[in-house]
């Protein structure tokens, strides 16, 4: 709602209702503005800061790696990379505002990578990482390949182009993260007050992207490798972080992040804050809230039940993987249909005349 509308509504209702008494309602109070402030102040900005500091650690580790190239340096870089990748699972939910404007989500997290492109770049030693041609040769997933492929350490030790490429990939992410962090420092105030109902309001953007990220996690992290879009023929080359085998860690962290965001829990401390759960309770939809929160917990515990990599699990126990996918699938309708319609959020991303 824009300001002119606001003034009009104030004037109109003011006249009509100056004599009316506000009625007390018995449900718990809820305020969208409080949700947005909690979200940005306790989750989005802290996770971005954490991601920035994770990348700085990675950057240092990568500098050591290209200088000394010891096996220990590689281990250190791998650990730093994994930490950043885990933090990314929270950051990637918020694909609006500065993250959207800078195409940060696709630049940082697109997988599977195209190893031919990466090897070609390294061989030639001349490339521009920001081009569309290199969209599948950058970001955290490219490091999965470069850090974990067979003979990874050898390549780093023997080919200076390889460590240079790693450094360039990390630097690109550091720079872009910087831009996004700065972008949020000004966008935060706008976001916090953007409580309207149009499809471009902060609240609508958040809900829509929350849903989109959940569906993306369901499809890309599990469904596509499992063959859900390829006539049940498994596609292991689509597995996220296939070389390191941390796919389940990332899936788990992604679900933990979505659950925390849903509940409005602080990124750093986990302390409870205003979230979608409170909004549903306010709307007297406690059973929907229980379903959503319970399903997240159930999914996380199902992932915990696997003691091997996703790639192995797909071969050894496809039924368990299918069950996991079904659980993921069943949650979509709760958040995308039931929760969204309870909130009165328009899922269409386009402004329209409505009727």
């Amino acid at each position: 709602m824009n300001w002119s509308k606001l003034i009009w509504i104030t004037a109109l209702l003011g006249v009509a209702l100056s004599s009316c008494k506000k009625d007390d309602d018995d449900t718990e109070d809820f305020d969208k503005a409080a949700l947005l402030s909690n979200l940005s102040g306790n989750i989005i900005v802290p996770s971005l800061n954490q991601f920035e500091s994770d990348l700085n650690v990675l950057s240092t580790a990568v500098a050591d790696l290209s200088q000394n190239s010891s096996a220990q340096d590689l281990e250190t870089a791998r650990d730093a990379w994994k930490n950043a990748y885990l933090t990314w699972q929270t950051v990637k939910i918020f694909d609006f505002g500065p993250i959207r404007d800078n195409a940060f989500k696709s630049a940082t997290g697109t997988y599977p990578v195209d190893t031919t492109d990466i090897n070609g770049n390294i061989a030639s030693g001349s490339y521009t990482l920001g081009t569309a041609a290199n969209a599948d040769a950058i970001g955290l997933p490219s490091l999965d390949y470069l850090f974990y492929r067979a003979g990874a350490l050898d390549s780093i030790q023997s080919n200076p182009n390889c460590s240079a490429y790693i450094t360039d990939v990390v630097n690109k992410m550091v720079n872009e993260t910087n831009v996004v962090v700065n972008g949020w420092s000004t966008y935060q105030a706008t976001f916090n007050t953007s409580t309207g109902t149009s499809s471009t309001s902060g609240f609508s953007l958040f809900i829509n992207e929350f849903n989109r990220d959940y569906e993306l996690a369901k499809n890309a992290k599990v469904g596509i490798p499992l063959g859900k879009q390829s006539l049940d023929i498994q596609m292991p080359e689509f597995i996220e972080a296939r070389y390191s085998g941390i796919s389940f860690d990332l899936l788990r962290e992604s679900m933990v992040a979505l659950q925390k965001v849903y509940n409005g829990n602080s990124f750093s401390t986990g302390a409870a804050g205003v979230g979608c759960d409170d909004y549903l309770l306010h709307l007297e939809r406690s059973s929907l809230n229980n379903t959503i929160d319970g399903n997240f917990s159930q999914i996380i515990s199902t992932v915990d039940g696997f003691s091997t990599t996703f790639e192995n699990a797909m071969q050894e126990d496809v039924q368990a993987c299918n069950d996991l996918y079904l659980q993921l699938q069943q949650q979509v309708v709760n958040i995308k249909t039931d929760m969204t319609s309870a909130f009165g959020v328009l899922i269409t991303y386009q402004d329209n005349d409505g009727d």
Partner: protein
Amino acid sequence: MVTSHNKNGISKALFKSVNIAPLIIFRIIFGALLLYGSIRFVAKGWVNSLYIEPDHYFGYLGFEWIKPLSGEWMYLPFVLMIVAALFILVGFKYRVAAITYFLAFTYVELLDKSNYLNHYYFVSLMSFLMIWVPANRQFSIDAYLRPSIRWKRSPAWTINILKFQLAVVYVFAGIAKLNSDWLFEALPLKIWLQAHHNVPLFGSLLEAEWVAYFFSWFGCIYDLFIVFFLLSKRTRPIAYVAVIVFHFVTWLLFPIGVFPWVMIFSTLIFFSANFHEKILHILRSFFSSFSARPPFNPSVLRYSSFSRKMITFLIGTYVFIQIVVPFRYVLYPGNLFWNEEGFRFSWRVMLMHKEGYATFYVEDRSTGRMSEIQNLDYLTETQEDQMATQPDMILQFADIIHDKYKGKTVTYQGQSFTFEDPAVRAEIYVSLNGRPSQLFVSKEHDLTALKYDLRHRNWIEPFKD
């Protein structure tokens, strides 16, 4: 039975000589609204996002042969609309302009039912009616260039048909609200209004339950009776204040574009000829060259008896269709909001909140293997959103997928599959007016085996309240 008294009444309502001023003013207002609406549509970039970007369109039954022009040519009908609206406004080549506007606008509307809006339907009907009425016979370039066409009076049907159309919109919108969700649950307004709870000062009011009930009941009563209050001279001023307030509030609270303004200005036609004469007088003082007034042609009322019969018959047919079409839903069993059989073209405005989640599958019949479809690979977000809750669009989308895969060979990990005649299935959940979602379409149906026609669709899962 038509008694002779009624017959006289009808004849009087149609052919009584009345002051033409309300029609002239209406032409100017309507032309201006069409002009504004058309320019706004282009300026918002909707030509591109709604009629150039999509890969597929959801045509109306029987009108699927109507296709978009290729690429940027889609701007052509909109240019025509803008020019025609301008011509209607100034009354230049009026009849050609009215026909052009009606055809261009209706063509665009028929392209894709994802964009169906009751108010677009209203504009189509109104611009159709405008073709037949002598709205350029005063204060127009046509009348300036050819003073002989000037009329001071006009047969009553030329104004009454427009009033009738407005009455249809309101009264049927009111009748549509006579359902238990609207009246006894204040749904979907309860959902829509609480979303405004952050509005300063009035937020807590907008989420108060009694306000949702008040808006629901007020809206229903307003729609049902406003026309009758506008018709009566005594209540007209207060009724028009209600019109302004009502549409203004809906404009504040809901994303309904130009519709509130269309209604606020269109309903001026209910005002007296005197009122419109005064406006014309003011307008003439701005355009002094138009004020030269040769005698108005008096031939207007000399209808032959055949013409009278013909006009009476055509108007009767139009009125009959307008009144019957919104009731066609009674021919279908089941819940109207759930099944949406006989839902469109019935002035069911802002009536329900429906949200759906649709997963489509394409199946290779020879192996029984299935792949999930990513709807957005084929549809825009708007189209997907509309499709997921509307059965006829679900069938049309299944058809799109079938055509895409028919005869296609896919290879995964070295294994090839050829879809000879793929089956298409869908698992769809829908939430109606904020209720917990229910199964809408089950995966057991091969949607390609179902015909898209007007018969009851028994493959929709029944609605459970």
